[in-house]
């Protein structure tokens, strides 16, 4: 049993899933689901299709080089079954996954880093331009600061509501 990678989106193809297409030059293309297969038949380039791993790696959205990827390289030599080795491999897989996920999160955070300052700047501009929507100009003339005014609401509506309910 072998877990393959989908040629189009690079997700793992588990046994029993997907289609493999054998081209006449004997190159085998494995697809995880018909979505990828149909995109392939449409002759789309996965490096240009936004949701594939190929695109994301190419455009720096996901991390490309990491030591955790070395563990997943394809080996063609079958290993003699050893219970201890199998047990250790399973433990290692869990740990490596945890580390890889942590690193990917760090990469994502780093990628999104410069955004907060930009968002605050944009918000400040919007407040300055649109303050007239929430603050009356007369109030603005008196109080130049861009804080939202306190609004006093008279509590009269409650009694009327109760009468409607009783009917």
């Amino acid at each position: 049993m072998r877990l393959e990678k989908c040629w189009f989106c690079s997700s793992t193809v588990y046994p029993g899933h997907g289609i493999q297409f054998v081209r006449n030059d004997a190159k085998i293309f494995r697809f995880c689901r018909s979505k990828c297969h149909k995109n392939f038949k449409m002759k789309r380039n996965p490096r240009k299709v936004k949701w594939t791993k190929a695109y994301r790696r190419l455009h720096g959205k996901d991390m490309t080089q990491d030591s955790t990827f070395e563990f997943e390289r394809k080996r063609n030599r079958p290993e003699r079954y050893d219970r201890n080795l199998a047990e250790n491999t399973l433990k290692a897989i869990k740990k490596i996954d945890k580390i890889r996920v942590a690193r990917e999160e760090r990469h994502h955070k780093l990628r999104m880093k410069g955004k907060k300052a930009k968002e605050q700047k944009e918000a400040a501009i919007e407040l300055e331009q649109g303050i007239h929507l929430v603050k009356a100009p007369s109030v603005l003339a008196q109080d130049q600061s861009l804080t939202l005014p306190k609004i006093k609401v008279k509590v009269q509506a409650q009694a009327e509501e109760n009468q409607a309910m009783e009917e």
Partner: protein
Amino acid sequence: MAASLASKWSRVGRSLLGGLGNNLSGLSSTSHEMASGNFLSQQQRTFIQMRTVLKVVDNSGAKTVMCIQPLKGRKVARLGDTIVASVKEAMPTGKVKKGQVVHAVVVRAAMQHGRFDGSEVRFDDNAVVLVNKAGEPTGTRVFGPVPHELRRKKHVSILTLAEHLA
């Protein structure tokens, strides 16, 4: 029985064409170049039956054959089945001549074939290797990839001649 089967296939064909027609109208909103590509690529690949033209991928001399009958009492042939075929095109210097009736083994089928692990395989075209009544290949070489399914069908001789094993 053959007539009813033929009518069933024509119904399938019409419904498929209807489905494809719907696809085409649905795709009119997308770019023009994609629409034509989609229409061609979403073909429904089916079995090998009478009148199916197949490519010959050995050096027996024939180029294309037309299926006359699937063997073993089957209605249709799939990957790995033997068929009776008529040679349509042949090389002038070859072991077989045009118009000859031969047996052939389907080595590549465009229709997906289910494997025992649950996966499916499909090839790019429909291809056969000419075979004698006993099952031995007429040619001495086989071109292109060849599936593992032949081992189960006891066509080991074809597998040994193959250059790639899919």
